[in-house]
Every structure is written in structure tokens, then in C-alpha cells.
């Protein structure tokens, strides 16, 4: 099986604070993986290192065998936890912008998904509601033909009906060659769509299992197990 992501002994220090304490993790192709952990556990730090936005203090990281850099940015589609697009642009302008920026961008797919949501390409981003802006961001990310999709809190800001849309978009774009890594703390909403989960706590990976294993071995939902493990 192809390894999409390989992390070995990854350490990240911010001054004296150790955000990641030497984590190791391998993700194969064709999986939807949940990166679950309480606030401040190191989820976003790991995601930023995967995207080459932060450099690790120590340890190794490979995306499809390559170190993060210009080349891997073409393979990783990243949805940040905050909206980063220019609000004065129209949806159409942003789609064109993405076409210029990413070789693997599929505009026809983006327009198809926008139409399904009744979002007109002629609208300026700033006229859209927060939820719709987030959906546009997700659509743009999923319209790339990437090897690794990294979604940081894709469902935090949207209503329950829109969450279903987000989840079905992720499922619908499933590709056996690619892997999707989703960071979230809204576990019960998304767990049905996952293959595997990685629990991260205080900069360490405390569990990495398939969700069916969790259900079988513990007789619990992933959400139930999470609440038990991270009780305080």
C-alpha cells in the first residue's frame, strides 16, 4: 500500500513549550482519517507542518515520499480553520484564481458543487453568509485533485444540515488513491464517514485505530471513547 503521509519522531517546540513531543504516524492511501483531540493538543501544529507552514524542531515528515516544500504543496489540498480568501472577489474570480494557482484544480467540479448549493458564481464573497463562505472554501479545497486533503475543522462553523452536506461532499469525492485527514472535535457528526481515527493529546498520539475496531472492541462509538479518554 502506498504511504501518503509518514511522520517519524516529529517534535515542534514554541520556545519552551513542546507542542508535538516526538510523534510517529503513517497514513496509507484511500482512507478518510479523523485527527481528534481536545483544544491545544497539537492538531493544528501537525497540520501546519504537513503543509510546510511550520518547520519541525526535530523528526522527519514525508508526503508521498517527499519532504514538505514547493513540490508537496501541489499534492496537498489544505482547508485552514479560518477563511483566508479576499472578500471583495466574486466566487467566479476566486475559482479562476485557484485555476491559475493549482495545476490540479477542476473548475467544472467546483461549479457543479456550487450550483447544487445555489451559490451564484457572480456573488462577491463578502455578501455570503459565514456558513456559505465556509462551504465555498470546502468546495475549492475538494475541487483539487490532490493526494492528501487536510481539512482543519471543516464543520465547526456550519449548521447541522450543512454539516451533512460537508460530510457527503467528502464522501462523494472519495478517491482510492488519495487520503483525507480531518481535524475536528465534533466527532459524533463525522465518525460514520471515517476509516481510522488518530487521538492526539498533549502533543502525543494516544491511539490510532480503525473505527470498526473501536466499535467492536469497546462497544462504544468513537465519540463515546473520546469522551471517556479525555475526561477531566
Amino acid at each position, binding site marked *: 500500500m502506498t504511504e501518503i503521509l509518514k511522520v517519524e519522531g516529529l517534535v515542534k517546540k514554541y520556545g519552551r513549550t513542546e507542542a508535538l513531543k516526538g510523534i510517529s504516524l503513517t497514513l496509507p492511501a484511500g482512507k478518510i482519517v479523523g485527527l481528534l483531540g481536545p483544544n491545544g493538543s497539537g492538531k493544528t501544529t501537525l497540520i501546519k507542518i504537513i503543509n510546510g507552514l511550520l518547520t519541525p524542531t526535530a523528526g522527519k515528515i514525508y508526503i508521498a515520499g517527499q519532504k514538505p516544500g514547493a513540490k508537496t504543496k501541489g499534492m496537498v489540498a489544505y482547508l485552514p480553520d479560518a477563511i483566508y480568501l479576499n472578500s471583495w472577489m466574486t466566487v467566479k474570480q476566486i475559482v479562476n484564481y485557484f485555476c491559475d494557482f493549482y495545476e490540479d484544480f477542476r473548475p467544472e467540479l467546483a461549479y457543479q458543487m456550487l450550483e447544487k448549493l445555489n451559490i451564484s458564481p457572480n456573488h462577491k464573497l463578502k455578501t455570503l453568509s459565514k456558513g456559505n463562505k465556509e462551504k465555498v472554501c470546502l468546495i475549492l479545497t475538494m475541487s483539487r485533485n490532490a493526494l492528501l486533503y487536510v481539512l482543519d475543522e471543516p464543520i465547526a462553523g456550519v449548521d447541522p444540515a450543512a454539516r451533512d452536506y460537508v460530510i457527503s461532499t467528502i464522501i462523494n469525492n*472519495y478517491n482510492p488513491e488519495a487520503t483525507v485527514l480531518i481535524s475536528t472535535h465534533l466527532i459524533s457528526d463525522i465518525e460514520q464517514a471515517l476509516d481510522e481515527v488518530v487521538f492526539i493529546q498533549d502533543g502525543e498520539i494516544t491511539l490510532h485505530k480503525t473505527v*470498526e475496531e473501536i466499535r467492536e472492541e469497546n462497544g462504544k462509538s468513537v465519540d463515546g471513547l473520546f469522551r471517556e479518554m479525555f475526561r477531566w
Partner: protein
Amino acid sequence: MQRNLDKTKPLCPQICEHICLDVALGELKPNERIKSVREAAVAVGVNPNTMQRSYEILEQEGILYSVRGTGWFVSENTEKAKQSLEKLKEEKTRMFFEEMLNLGMSAEELREFIKEYKYD
């Protein structure tokens, strides 16, 4: 979107059971083409790999068959699905009786209840 799946139990057997019942009750007809793995995964809101595995299990049991490059179909012979339905009916009935007995209903009261129940 979510078809009453119990997330505290493995999803595969539950999905298999749902499809099996649809076949046994004639909601899905023999040789009918069913949803693709992706469509079904989106409809139920589960992981495509989970749906794929469920279809493969049902194929091994002879309830579904696949045609390479075309899709998934309901088997001509629905006997196996019907057997599963019978088993489920028996299980559920047994569970009902046990529950009622646990609630202190006597055998006599149960018989009375079954006789008086409006079956329409």
C-alpha cells in the same frame, strides 16, 4: 441521511442487515441494479470503504452479485435474504416476549394481549 445506524456497534453488519431486509421484503427486486458503492455511501452517510466491504460480504453470502465495470445487482435467488429475515423476526419476537416477562407480564396476560391486539 443516517439510516438509524447504531454507532456503538460495527456498521458493516448493520448495513448488511438493512440491504438484506430490503431484498427479503421485495423493496429490491432480483437482478435489480442497486446504488453504486459511492452513491450508497453518500446516501447513508458512511465511509465508502465500509460500504464496499458490506457489498462484498453480501456477495459472499449470495445476496448480491457484481458485474465488473457495470455495478452491483440483487441475486436471482433471494432465499438467503429471506432466511435472514425469518431469523430476525424470530429474534425480535423473542426479545419482545422476554422484555414483557421481565416487566412482570404473565403468560396469561401475554396470550390475552396477542388475542386482543388490533392487527391492521
